[in-house]
């Protein structure tokens, strides 16, 4: 569509020169309303959102939902199968698996969100710099990002945590860092595409500073892919965090973390499979929620990206 047609479509007025193709006349609507409408109609995305909300609710409301303590050990109750007293059974130390799964949601969601926030924050800054600060900065940053991408993500995360010591803080840091190149590349691509646009050139002509151009004009217009990617990124971050927990490098005992719960349960597969099934199921459900919603967001926000 040429600019005249685009303008005509926006204002609803006919251009001076009659268009060669008929322009579909549609009621005026902002792109956001459009996106929301598409999102509402996407059943998979809504299902994803509902799963996320459910998991968040269960995590936040854990003390209201169960009276069981997620950490307290009752050794006489070891490896009890699911029952009305212990909905998901008990683990090898007699702890209530249901309570641990609920409280575990707090940890996984927090780790996922913090790690992605860290990755997006750093990645966006780095990407803006690479896209806008000139060729030398661009090639240095791009090569640096390629170096980070040259290591398999789990290996890099393990190495970072191994170097800094196990624990939840370092887990978040490690997962945040492995996300940086992904967001940096996305932002850089947007900046490169946007910086020659008319409105950016206009802003520059009016004497706007580099920072103002970047944060006022370029960043807001490159948010779409970032929002989509970070939603999907939360899914990956939750899995990676659980993997580190499972390997004994993430959350430390007796924290009720989903991955760590699997490590304990692994030795009791024969006697207490429930201690393994439920935490893993919780990880999968949460991750599925973020993946479904992220996919839906992508389709809704940018129909052109639709496969």
């Amino acid at each position, binding site marked *: 569509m040429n600019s005249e047609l685009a303008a005509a479509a926006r204002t609803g007025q006919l251009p001076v020169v009659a268009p060669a193709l008929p322009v579909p006349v549609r009621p005026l609507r902002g792109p956001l309303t459009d996106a929301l409408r598409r999102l509402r109609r996407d059943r998979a995305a809504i299902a994803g959102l509902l799963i996320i909300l459910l998991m968040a609710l269960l995590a936040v409301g854990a003390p209201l939902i169960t009276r069981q303590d997620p950490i307290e050990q009752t050794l006489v109750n070891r490896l009890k199968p699911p029952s009305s007293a212990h909905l998901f059974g008990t683990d090898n130390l007699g702890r209530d698996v249901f309570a641990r799964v609920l409280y575990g949601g707090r940890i996984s969601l927090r780790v996922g969100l913090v790690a992605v926030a860290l990755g997006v924050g750093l990645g966006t800054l780095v990407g803006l710099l690479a896209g806008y600060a000139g060729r030398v900065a661009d090639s240095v940053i791009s*090569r*640096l990002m*390629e*170096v980070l991408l*040259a*290591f*398999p*993500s*789990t*290996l890099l995360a*393990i*190495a970072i945590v*191994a*170097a*800094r*010591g196990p624990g939840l803080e370092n887990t978040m840091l490690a997962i945040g860092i492995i996300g940086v190149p992904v967001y940096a590349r996305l932002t850089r691509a947007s900046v490169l595409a946007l910086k020659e646009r008319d409105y950016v050139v206009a802003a520059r002509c009016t004497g706007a500073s580099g920072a103002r151009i970047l944060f006022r004009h370029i960043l807001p217009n490159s948010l779409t892919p970032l929002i989509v990617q970070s939603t999907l990124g939360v*899914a990956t971050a939750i*899995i990676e965090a*659980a*993997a580190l927990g*499972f*390997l*004994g*490098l993430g959350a430390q005992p007796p924290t009720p973390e989903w*991955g760590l719960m*699997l490590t304990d*349960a*692994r030795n009791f*597969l*024969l006697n207490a*499979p429930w201690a*393994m*099934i439920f*935490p*893993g199921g919780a*990880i*999968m459900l949460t*991750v*599925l929620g973020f*993946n*479904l919603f992220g*996919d839906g967001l992508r389709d809704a926000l940018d129909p052109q990206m639709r*496969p």
Partner: protein
Amino acid sequence: MVSFILRRLLEAVPVLIGVSIVVFLFLRLIPGDPAIALLGERASEQNVQRLREQMGLNQPLHVQYWRFVRGLAQGDVGRSIRTTRPVMAEAGSRFPATVELTAAALTLALLTGVGAGTLSATWRGSFIDHAARVLSLAGISIPIFWLGLVLIWLFAVQLPWLPPDGRLSAEMRYSPITNFVFVDALLQRRGDLALDALRHVILPALALSTVPMAIIARMTRAALLEVLRADYVRTARAKGLPERAVTLRHAMKNAALPVVTIVGLQVGILLSGAILTETIFSWPGVGRWIFESILNRDFPVVQGMSLVIAVIFVSVNLVVDVLYAALDPRIRVR
């Protein structure tokens, strides 16, 4: 084409240098004295000093780095603290195990992924399409370490059909030639050996294949749908070709490009997954070795293997790029 390959090779050089610096710094970034980190808190002052001397830790950083690079050029990535053997020599028996596992997983992922993606695209909007899409979403959402445990519980504990761990049964005796069990079985005409190895590789390969399977299925579906809309597909249909010929001969060939790229990118995912899968299934490969070395603080192994893996990863990406350019001339002009 030659200039394209040269350019890509040149671009890989700074990345590889960067990788070597990161790997080099890894040991130095560990808080405290690397020698104490390696020997443990209770090591005697003498031993620490000797190791510092041995590792060249008393020299300036750039001298140490130069030593490290010189070693690399000779294929020396360091020695394991635990066994004192060169890391590369130790890797010799473990690499084949990882290659076998990842190759099995990738084969499985390709067969099921391309199959599901093709069915999905040709029956778009049908029940098959929905089922395949749900399956592929589940594939990227399932934590493979959990899937591994579930598979062991189902097929080794509940239904004792397959072995829960290891690469071969303990009673299986054989003298390795190449360390690739399947190759050795072929060379020595040992059907029982191949069967035993196959029984062992099924579960870990299944667990490891889920993420690549899901990604390949999604990519195949998207690429095929794109191509099926193209003019030449309409032409093929218009001239009366049967649908099967249209899909297989005209569409698939052109949809293969993005799929090839995606398959190349799976190498990283497979190597990441191998660390977890090998740990769960006690698979004697590189992934489990790296992880155990981290727990044992055998950092030269971690350092050396990270470097080797990164180099493999960069090389695969390079090959994929070149392949892509060979298949699609438009890529060469950038």
